[in-house]
């Protein structure tokens, strides 16, 4: 058996980063408080001094810290992105997570020693693409978009030397990331440029006659009857009318959770299991990190005897909208 798979936890702020480290993460990832990363929500993310403190805390506990710089700078002000690359090196981060060709090129040439992880926003889902990024920018790792089955990941493992990281838990993007324009279609705000999908300022809740309507911009994303739980309005989890029925046309609200397939995922040859959710609370980070840690350790103690414990699943479900979970695309029949 190879090296133990890594548990990689999100941090939207310093307390969450500490929680991740304290609850058994092998590595953490965070972004700065601006449009340079794809979770640019108000009140979230790190200042420069937070980043220093966070990296220091992680390193003192033997935990790696990765910096996220995964949006696409536009022509008018790319300076902030390039400065952030330089800062990441100065801060002593363990890796930088990027998607834009121009930034990758700059980073590889200017800071050849800084390990690069290709962001999920680059949507690299096949060997020619991944190997292209390796050839030109020396990437060490690719974060796979949530479009591959476990079988496809195992097969891909044989066609590239680049380390593979996959999402293990959290919000489920059901589209090819970095190339989804649904949110900007309704709001005019581009996740790729401004770093936020379904921005809070475009979200409206309307309550009338016991029915709740959720909107993104002008678009009605879902209407709920009494007693139904409303989800945060994102288009891909909305309820629409198609083919003569009203249903979640793309996906139900809920979380991706790979625990039931953990052995297959680990044995497919991935090096890192990523928890989504930099926008979530410290207690979410603590709970999910602790359970993933426990599950991974339990797998390595006796791989063939592994089973996902009911209490893990219940606790994880409780953290998620809709309180349900899915294996998502890792399982063929989801597609």
């Amino acid at each position, binding site marked *: 058996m190879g090296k133990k798979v890594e548990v990689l936890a999100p941090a939207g702020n310093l307390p969450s980063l500490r929680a991740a480290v304290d609850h058994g993460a092998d590595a953490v990832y965070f972004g700065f408080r601006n449009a340079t990363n794809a979770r640019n929500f108000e009140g979230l993310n790190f200042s420069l001094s937070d980043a220093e403190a966070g990296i220091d805390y992680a390193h003192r506990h033997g935990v790696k810290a990765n910096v996220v710089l995964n949006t696409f700078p536009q022509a008018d002000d790319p300076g902030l992105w390039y400065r952030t690359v330089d800062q990441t090196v100065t801060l002593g981060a363990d890796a930088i997570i990027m998607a834009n060709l*121009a930034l990758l090129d700059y980073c590889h040439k200017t800071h050849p020693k800084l390990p690069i992880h290709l962001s999920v926003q680059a949507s690299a889902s096949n060997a020619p693409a991944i190997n292209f990024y390796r050839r030109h920018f020396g990437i060490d790792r690719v974060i796979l978009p949530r*479009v*591959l089955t476990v079988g496809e990941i195992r097969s891909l493992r044989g066609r590239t030397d680049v380390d593979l990281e996959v999402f293990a838990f959290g919000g489920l993007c059901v589209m090819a990331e970095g190339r989804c324009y649904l949110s900007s279609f309704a709001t005019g705000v581009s996740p790729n440029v401004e770093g936020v999908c379904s921005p809070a300022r475009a979200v409206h809740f309307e309550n009338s006659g016991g029915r709740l309507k959720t909107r993104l911009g002008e678009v009605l994303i879902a209407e709920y009857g009494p007693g139904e739980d409303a989800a945060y309005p994102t288009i891909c989890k909305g309820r629409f009318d198609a083919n003569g029925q009203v249903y979640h046309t793309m996906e139900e609200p809920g979380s991706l959770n790979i625990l039931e397939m953990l052995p297959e995922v680990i044995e497919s040859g991935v090096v890192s299991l990523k928890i989504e959710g930099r926008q979530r609370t410290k207690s979410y980070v603590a709970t999910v990190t602790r359970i993933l840690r426990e599950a991974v350790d339990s797998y390595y103690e006796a791989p063939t005897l592994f089973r996902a414990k009911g209490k893990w699943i219940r606790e994880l479900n409780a953290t998620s909208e809709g309180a349900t979970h899915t294996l998502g695309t890792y399982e063929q029949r989801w597609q």
Partner: protein
Amino acid sequence: MRISLGPCQFDWGKNALKDFYRRMAFETPVDILYIGEVVCSKRQSLTPEEMVDLARELGPSGKEVVFSTLGLVMNAGEEDLLYRMAVAARSGGWWLEANDMGGIAVGEGRPMVAGPHITTYNPETVVFLQRVGVRRVVFPVELSALAMGDMIRRHGGEVETEIFAYGKLPLTFSARCYTARAFRYSKANCQFKCGDFADGMTMRTQEGVPFLAINGTQTMSHRVYNLVDETDRLEAMGVGVVRLSPQSLGMAEIVAVWKDRLQRRMSGGEAFRRLLELNGGEPFCNGYFNGRPGLEFVEPEVRPQ
């Protein structure tokens, strides 16, 4: 500016597709034809070898033919298809349009087009792409006139630019098939249902407002994006090619209106009215071009300049 006919996004079947491209090549004034399946490798669309035959057949029309690759390549079988496309394109000197970085990878070193699904958001990216062989860039559909104009001005290279100018906007790809899902089938057993929807399946909000079009693993705008009354601005920006995206009805007439407009035989307003008629009076959208939500239509008098 030249006119291109983008790759057909829908599952019309081999024969209908071939007839369509023949008609477009020989009977309309388009300058460039993109052929090739962009959405789903399960569809019975043209194989790379059949594309070579078709491109040869279209040769006498004098039109430029480009081979478009899949928008999302997810497995070894699809990678093989990519390589076969690259070989097929080289065999006759046709360019590839890469719609996934895997497409850029297999086309590297040869002249190619970076399609609208390549994330070209800044001039430095255009410069990089040029280094690996890209000769024409089709910008992502969500970019505004301001952002595109800025990029064209600043990249400083020889790369030509193309803008998605007419048709339902391709907004996103997934591993999941939403047409199959609407029939409670899985993708593995999809029954090729997307073939029953020549222009996609309309998805409405619970208030009955048409919003998106489901097209297999792809999701598109319900409204047709239309920049025909912006051709002066496109020219001033330095755009080289306007892309019209195939639809099942009236495509030859749509191309003719665009040609008339580009040759100034028709005013922008007239061309717009004519296209509105051809669109059955259904409203268009142009929000992205004007820096607004993509689904909006911004009236001429309030457009930012």
